[in-house]
C-alpha cells in the first residue's frame, strides 16, 4: 500500500489507519467526533497527500483545459482556482477536481487519489495537437489541509512560512495570506521550499490547503501542530467524511460517477454548456436528461439511526432511490444523508422513508448543504 510522506508522524501519534484508494491513511487519531468538532470550533489538520497533482504547462494550456474539462479555465486570473469536472465522451464524470492558475501558461490540477490513473489517462489522451505538457507530480507532492476558524491565524504564525509572488505576479502584501480570497491561491515558501497556498477545502469551514514537496511535509506538519497548540487537532479521514457530508459536498464514487451526468448531482452549473468551443462530453450533455434519471437530494431524519450508502429510499412501498452517503451528523445531532432519488420525489419537504437494515426510518427531503458556517449562530 502507498504511504504518505507523513506516515511515520501518524504512526508515532498513534493514529488508526484505513485503506483509502490504495493508500494507508489515518482514519482517526483518537476520536472521530473530537476531530470533527475541532474543525467546526477551532481547527483541524489533515494529511491529504494521497490526492493526485498534475501540472499543465505550455502555450495552449488554457485552451487545452477548456477542451479537457467541463468549465472555462482559460479565463481564470493568475492565482484563481475553480472546481471543475473531467467528463467522459458520454457525459459521465471521470473525476471532480480543482484547477489552480499558476501562470499564463501554467496550471495545477488536484484530483482524487482514487481517480489518479483514469485522470492521467484522460489528460494524456486529450493532448492531441495542443502545445502542452502534462506531468503527474502526485508521487513527489504532499498536501496538507488546515481547516477551521483558527486556521488562518495558525498559518500566519508558522516560522519560515511566507507568501511570495508568482513568477508573473506582483509581490504579495504583508497580510497576503489573510487577504487571500476563497478559491484563490498564492505562491509561497517554507524555509527554502516552494509551497502553494490555496484557500480551498472539503469541510465547509474556512481554511487552506498547502501543496509542497514530500521532503518538507513533515516539518510543516509538525510546525502547524506546534504553533496551533490546543487550537488545532490532527484529523483523520473519518472526520473529513462527516465534515464534507454536513457541508453537502459530493464524494466521487458516492454522489458522482461515470454512470451519472453532472446535472443529476446538482452540478449542472459547473458545466459551461454555453462555451463556444467543443469540450469532451459536450455533445452527450446537449441531449436532454432522461426524465426518470435520479437526482441528488439531502435527507434528514429524527433520532440517532442513520441511513448509510446503499440503503434503499422508499415512497410508500416503492423503492424510489438509494442513499449515497449518510451519518449521524456530529454538528447537528440528527441523521443526515444524501441520496439519488427519482425526480418525482425530489422536491424539498417530500416525506420518504429509509430502509435501515429492515427498519423504516422517516426522512424528509431538505436543501443542501445541511450545515453552512455563515448560517451558524
Amino acid at each position, binding site marked *: 500500500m502507498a504511504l504518505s510522506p507523513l506516515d511515520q508522524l501518524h504512526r508515532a501519534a498513534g493514529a488508526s489507519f484505513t485503506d483509502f484508494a490504495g493508500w494507508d491513511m489515518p482514519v482517526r487519531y483518537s476520536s472521530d467526533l473530537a476531530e470533527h468538532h475541532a474543525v467546526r470550533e477551532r481547527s483541524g489538520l489533515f494529511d491529504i497527500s494521497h490526492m493526485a497533482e498534475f501540472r499543465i504547462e505550455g502555450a495552449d494550456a488554457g485552451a487545452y483545459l477548456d477542451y479537457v474539462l467541463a468549465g472555462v479555465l482559460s479565463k481564470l486570473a493568475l492565482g484563481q482556482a475553480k472546481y471543475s469536472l473531467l467528463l467522459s465522451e458520454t457525459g459521465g464524470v471521470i473525476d471532480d477536481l480543482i484547477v489552480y492558475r499558476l501562470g499564463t501558461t501554467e496550471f495545477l490540477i488536484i484530483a482524487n487519489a482514487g481517480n489518479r490513473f483514469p485522470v492521467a489517462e484522460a489528460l494524456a489522451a486529450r493532448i492531441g495537437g495542443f502545445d502542452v505538457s502534462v506531468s503527474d507530480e502526485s508521487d513527489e507532492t504532499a498536501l496538507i489541509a488546515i481547516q477551521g476558524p483558527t486556521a488562518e491565524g495558525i498559518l500566519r504564525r508558522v516560522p519560515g512560512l511566507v507568501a511570495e509572488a508568482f513568477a508573473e505576479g506582483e509581490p504579495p502584501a504583508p497580510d497576503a495570506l489573510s487577504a487571500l480570497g476563497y478559491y484563490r491561491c498564492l505562491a509561497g515558501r517554507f524555509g527554502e521550499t516552494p509551497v502553494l497556498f490555496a484557500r480551498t477545502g472539503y469541510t465547509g469551514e474556512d481554511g487552506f490547503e498547502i501543496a509542497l514537496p514530500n521532503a518538507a511535509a513533515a516539518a510543516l506538519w509538525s510546525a502547524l501542530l506546534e504553533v496551533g497548540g490546543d487550537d488545532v487537532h490532527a484529523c483523520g479521514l473519518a472526520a473529513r*467524511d462527516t465534515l464534507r457530508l454536513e457541508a453537502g459536498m459530493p464524494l466521487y464514487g458516492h454522489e458522482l460517477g461515470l454512470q451519472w451526468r453532472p446535472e443529476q448531482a446538482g452540478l449542472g452549473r459547473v458545466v459551461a454548456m454555453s462555451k463556444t468551443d467543443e469540450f469532451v462530453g459536450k455533445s452527450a450533455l446537449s441531449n436532454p436528461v432522461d426524465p426518470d434519471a435520479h437526482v441528488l437530494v439531502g435527507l434528514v431524519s429524527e433520532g440517532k439511526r442513520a441511513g448509510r450508502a446503499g440503503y434503499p429510499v422508499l415512497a410508500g412501498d416503492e423503492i424510489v432511490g438509494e442513499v449515497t452517503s449518510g451519518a449521524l451528523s456530529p454538528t447537528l445531532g440528527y441523521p443526515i444523508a444524501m441520496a439519488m432519488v427519482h425526480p418525482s420525489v425530489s422536491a424539498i419537504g417530500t416525506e420518504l422513508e429509509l430502509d435501515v437494515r429492515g427498519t423504516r426510518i422517516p426522512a424528509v427531503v431538505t436543501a443542501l448543504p445541511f450545515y453552512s458556517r455563515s448560517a451558524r449562530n
Partner: protein
Amino acid sequence: MTDLTALNYTAEHEWIAVDGDVATIGITDYAAEKLGDVVFVDLPAVGAQVTAGSVCGEIESTKSVGELYAPVTGEVIEANQGVVDSPELVNADPFGAAWMIKVRFTQTGEFLDRAAYEALTAE
C-alpha cells in the same frame, strides 16, 4: 479494572463474563476501536430470546455499523439502558460501564480464551 483473562471471547469480538447460568455480554476494546466513536446502540428487550451466533443488537459509529452477536442461547434478563443513553461508554469503558446485556443461558456458542482472542486480533 476488569481481569481480562477471566473473560471469554468470541471471534465476533464480544466478551462474556459467566456467573452460574447468567452471561454478561459486551464488545471488546478492539471492536470499539475499529468502529470509532459509537453514537447509537440498539439492544434486545428484556425477555427476548437470543440464539448463539445470531445478531441480537446493533452498534453504530459515525463511520460504520457493527452488529452484536449473541454468544449464548437464552433469555435476556437485563439490558443496559446506560449504554443506550450514553453510547460513548462503548469507547470509554468497553469492559465495564458499557456491558450490554445479561442472558440466562441454556447453551453457549464457541468461546475463545484471552490468549486465543489476542492471537486473533494481533495484526
